[in-house]
């Protein structure tokens, strides 16, 4: 648990502090990198909560980003709701979707779970890429950002938007930190370690898993809303399974079940992507090879490996998911 881990706080402080400083001082192009990092971090934290703590290996979490983005687009663009209210509605819808989908998918386990989550998210993607109202697979532009002029912040400036996104990423980190330390989080870890034991001790396993899905769904929907406001564009790609897979990779490469690891992973992913992209259009081949190398060299993830190197046990919540079910 991050509390007993001396590395966690300095790393997180360094990364988020760096991002905040960058948001204040860098040029317009690098600002887009900061925003991208902050949004990805929020997204992967919600995945880590499911994968690393609740042991629910989802391959379709980007579907919730899609729910948030499309709900926001619908409410603010078509119904004319204020963006703040529309965002609340989107997050609520993300939570509801989490409950419904969670109740459905937690009936299966193992590799089937991976497949069903994938299928459900792709159903959303398939709908979105045919939804003519939202421009089908061309997407739809002209989306508005949240209006905070009343408190003196103009989010239409990318700099202000970047600062807000970084602050929100920090809040998301501490939100999940509190959550995993709460009795609810502890119960999830118990379920992940041994579901039957948790059930025998009277823990309503199913309900807890669904609740975890609702929370992770709401946060991912929120990340989707930020993504929409960043690009001012709604596009089915936001829910594509490649994005879910990337998120999962970021979590595993960073270190699942640590919260700090996925933050590291999020920073590295975006930076690596942008840097390699500036040298070659074939960034994916290097990204893929790096994924494979890291997963093989450090199955605990970068953060797990770091923790081991400084002589502490890796801050894992439990044995790696799925390792035992083969």
């Amino acid at each position, binding site marked *: 648990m991050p509390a007993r881990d001396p590395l966690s706080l300095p790393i997180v402080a360094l990364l988020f502090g760096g991002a905040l400083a960058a948001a204040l001082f860098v040029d317009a192009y690098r600002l887009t990198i900061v925003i991208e990092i902050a949004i990805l971090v929020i997204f992967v934290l919600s995945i880590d909560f499911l994968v690393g703590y609740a042991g629910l290996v989802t391959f379709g979490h980007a579907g919730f980003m899609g729910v948030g983005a499309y709900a926001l687009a619908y409410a603010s663009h078509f119904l004319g709701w204020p963006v703040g209210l529309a965002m609340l509605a989107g997050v609520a819808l993300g939570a509801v979707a989490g409950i419904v989908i969670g109740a459905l998918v937690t009936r299966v386990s193992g590799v089937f779970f991976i497949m069903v989550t994938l*299928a459900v998210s792709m159903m959303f993607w398939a709908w979105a890429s*045919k939804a003519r109202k939202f421009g089908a697979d061309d997407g739809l532009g002209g989306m508005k950002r949240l209006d905070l002029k009343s408190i003196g912040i103009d989010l239409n400036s990318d700099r202000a938007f970047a600062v807000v996104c970084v602050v929100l990423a920090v809040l998301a980190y501490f939100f999940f930190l509190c959550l995993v330390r709460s009795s609810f989080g502890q119960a999830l870890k118990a379920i992940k370690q041994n579901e039957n034991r948790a059930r025998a001790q009277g823990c309503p396993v199913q309900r807890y898993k669904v609740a975890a899905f609702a929370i992770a769904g709401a946060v991912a929907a929120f990340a989707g809303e930020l993504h929409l406001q960043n690009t001012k564009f709604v596009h089915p790609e936001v829910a594509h399974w490649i994005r879910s897979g990337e998120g999962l990779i970021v979590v595993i490469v960073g270190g699942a079940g640590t919260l700090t690891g996925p933050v590291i992973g999020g920073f590295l992913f975006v930076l690596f992507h942008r840097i390699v992209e500036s040298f070659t259009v074939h960034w*994916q*081949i290097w990204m893929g090879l790096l994924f494979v190398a890291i997963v093989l060299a450090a199955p605990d993830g970068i953060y797990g490996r770091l923790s081991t190197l400084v002589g502490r046990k890796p801050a894992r919540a439990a044995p790696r998911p799925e390792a035992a079910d083969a």
Partner: protein
Amino acid sequence: MELVNLYGIQLLNALWLSALLFMLAVGLSVVFGLLDVLNLAHCTLYMIGAYIGFTIADRLDSYWLALLVAPVAVTVIGAILYLVLLRRLRGNHLIQALVTFGLLFVGYDAARMIWGVDQFKIAEPALLTESFPIFGQKYPLYRLFVFGVGLATAVALYVGLDRTRLGAVVRAGVDDRETAAVLGINIDRAFFVVFCIGTALAGFAGVLAAPIRTIEPGIDVEILIPALVVVVIGGPGSLKGAVLGAFIIGTAETFGPQLVPEFASFIMYAVMAAVLLVRPQGLLPVKPAH
């Protein structure tokens, strides 16, 4: 009568698509069910098969040579992949899924680097360019050929699994790996052969599909999802399940756009979700549910 003709043609389309999906899914399914290796990059091998087939057909002007050589080349690539990488990951589905997911990116970009982003097609072999009068129209003979090949593959695999020594070894290994190993059977070698057959079929399917579907970067991911759905609804590791699953998905994908156009794009996922809710182990699982 017109309706019969219309649906008849659609049925024929469903059949060749099912055959294609079967050849792809059976490798994925058997490799997962028997070897416990979830290989998301299976469809990368399909794509590479199609590209290599295109290059051979283009340079040597022979479809049949492409159909013969490309699967061999793909098998070599698959074998290297298995020996170097996948063998070590056996048993950990999450890591397998992620490593092979990474390989998807590598394969995609490698194909783009070598063959570019243009669309290609392999010309149908001269023998099969004719059309076949059926249901009041002319139906391309080549599509029937694809269906025939798929059917023959299914029969050959069934007989192979049921009647040959390798089949018996594989069944024993699936049933109880340790006992089989103790009895002196080289399980690892048998599983390696099974993996190679699976990859060869993926490459084979790539070339078979190339005269009908275009070859371009991204066809790997495009076909991966239906193939995975076939595996899941049929039951991983199950040969009969792959046949049934391929037929269901091939039919749904062909008739869906016609009957319910607005839902066509997610019929496949809905079928899968429904099957999993009713029978979480798939329709024809290898091992009965405990």
